[in-house]
């Protein structure tokens, strides 16, 4: 931490978040897993308050990239910086596969509270301040209704909200979500996306959200990190989602079609090729 770039920037007033503030920086990062290069020369940075979509099809490396940011995967080359400062968990994470057993004696609020202090030793006593923080968080993600329910019995979409509350309660500066829309119907997906965009702006949090379909994110995305064949491009949606850029990334001709406010990426110009709706 404390690089030249940080030092040359005027320091923000204490307590107030600065207008621009890098929360994540990947510098020419490559990752190999099981002898295969999964990510190659990925460079990317994210500011606090920004909402970035991490887009790629199955196996493109989305989960790997998020685990890399968490420090659970070590890069073969390049550096990952998360200049967040402070103590405690500063990165919130909502994993792709959520498997909570239905017969666990654990309420939704218990799981959220563990987001606050699950890494601490001792049995711990939670005072009124912690309980209020849990209530507030459950309210903020629209999960107050099932706060007392067994978390394993909740529906996929309800568990998703509890997980988001778990990730956010430690007040992270960076929130990573791995395909949070995969389990949701269209309306619930829109609600979650709107909620996250609101949180990103309100609490000045950088959000990196992975999805295989960029369309639900189009209204809120500030930028996009597009993965294909282990390589990545990033920038504004208009820059990245163009026939030229994506053709270069895929290494083959792809067509970007905008219709009815949706983006469709069509692979190949060959008439026999199937149409992919990413």
């Amino acid at each position, binding site marked *: 931490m404390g690089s030249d770039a940080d030092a040359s920037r005027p320091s923000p007033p204490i307590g107030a978040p600065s207008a621009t503030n890098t929360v994540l920086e990947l510098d020419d990062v490559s990752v190999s897993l099981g002898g295969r290069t999964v990510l190659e020369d990925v460079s990317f940075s994210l500011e606090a308050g920004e909402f970035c979509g991490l887009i790629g099809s199955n196996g493109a490396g989305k989960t790997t990239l998020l685990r890399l940011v968490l420090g659970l995967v070590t890069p073969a080359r390049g550096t990952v910086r998360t200049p967040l400062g402070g103590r405690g968990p500063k990165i919130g994470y909502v994993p792709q596969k959520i498997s909570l057993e239905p017969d666990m004696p654990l309420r939704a609020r218990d799981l959220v509270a563990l987001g606050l202090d699950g*890494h601490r030793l001792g049995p711990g006593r939670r005072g009124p301040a912690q309980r209020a923080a849990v209530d507030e968080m459950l309210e903020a993600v629209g999960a107050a209704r099932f706060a007392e329910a067994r978390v394993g019995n909740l529906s996929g979409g309800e568990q998703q909200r509890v997980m988001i509350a778990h990730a956010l309660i430690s007040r992270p500066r960076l929130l990573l979500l791995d395909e949070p829309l995969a389990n949701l119907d269209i309306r619930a997906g829109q609600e979650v996306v709107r909620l996250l965009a609101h949180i990103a702006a309100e609490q000045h949090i950088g959000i990196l959200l992975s999805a295989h379909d960029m369309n639900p994110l189009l209204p809120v995305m500030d930028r996009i990190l597009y993965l294909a064949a282990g390589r990545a491009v990033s920038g504004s949606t208009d820059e990245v989602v163009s026939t030229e850029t994506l053709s270069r990334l895929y290494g083959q001709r792809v067509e970007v079609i905008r219709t009815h406010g949706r983006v469709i990426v069509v692979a190949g110009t060959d008439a026999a090729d199937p149409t992919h709706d990413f």
Partner: protein
Amino acid sequence: MFAGYLVNTWEAATIVAVVAGVAGFFIVLRGAAFAAHALPNGAFAGAAGATLIGANTILGLGVFSLAGAALIAALGRRARQDVATALTIVVMLASGDLFLSRTSEYAPAIFALLFGEVLGISSGQVVPTAAIAAVCVAAVLVLYRPLLLSSVAPDLAEAQGIDTRFMDLAFLVVIALVTTMAVPVVGSLLIFSLLIGPPAAARAFTDRPPVALGLSVVLALLSVWVSIAASFETNLPIGFFVGATGAVWYLAGHVRTAWAGHARHPEPARARRAARTPRG
């Protein structure tokens, strides 16, 4: 039955029940029942080996159950934990077989380890039992929150900076210590029912983790107390009563779940019945 010589029995059994309730809560939550079955059953090999070289059997139990825990943890890095556990118990049982074939004084000492000698606890046994028990309970309390999170959602724990492999190993060591402490008292066959029955039933009665933990301890205590008393009165083996009370708790838990489910969702039940009624 509260006669002087039985005081040791009540004390030792009470200590074992408290520890079984505490450790059992996490065994059930982590789905580690197989390891909790394998270590007590495989550790008898250590006792057999100790008899062979003329060492203390409890020491043999301790060494073997800790080695078993380490082996499960090491193999578990490459394979699923149930496969690692299966390989470990095979190794332990095989060495037990070897040790037993080389020793002549097999029967009573080893047999006691299978079913325990709860009515024959000496006063010298109570203090080491209590000491190991204190270590187990202290370890679980210190690790309570990270252990809870890594049990219910390992990927969340990992992302929150908790070393989930350390948690696996630490908890296996706790099971190994519980084994060392409890096998001479209640036997390797019965410790398993104390470790699983009460916490499995407790889950049905509460949604709160600390309450479930407490209830698991209470049910384990009731199990051993009722069993000692009933065994003393009827002259039937204590193991029968420990198993039976475990089954009773479990059944009560099922009844409670079914009843609560019906009370909370009477509508779907009615709707299902309506759907089965042929229309027209």
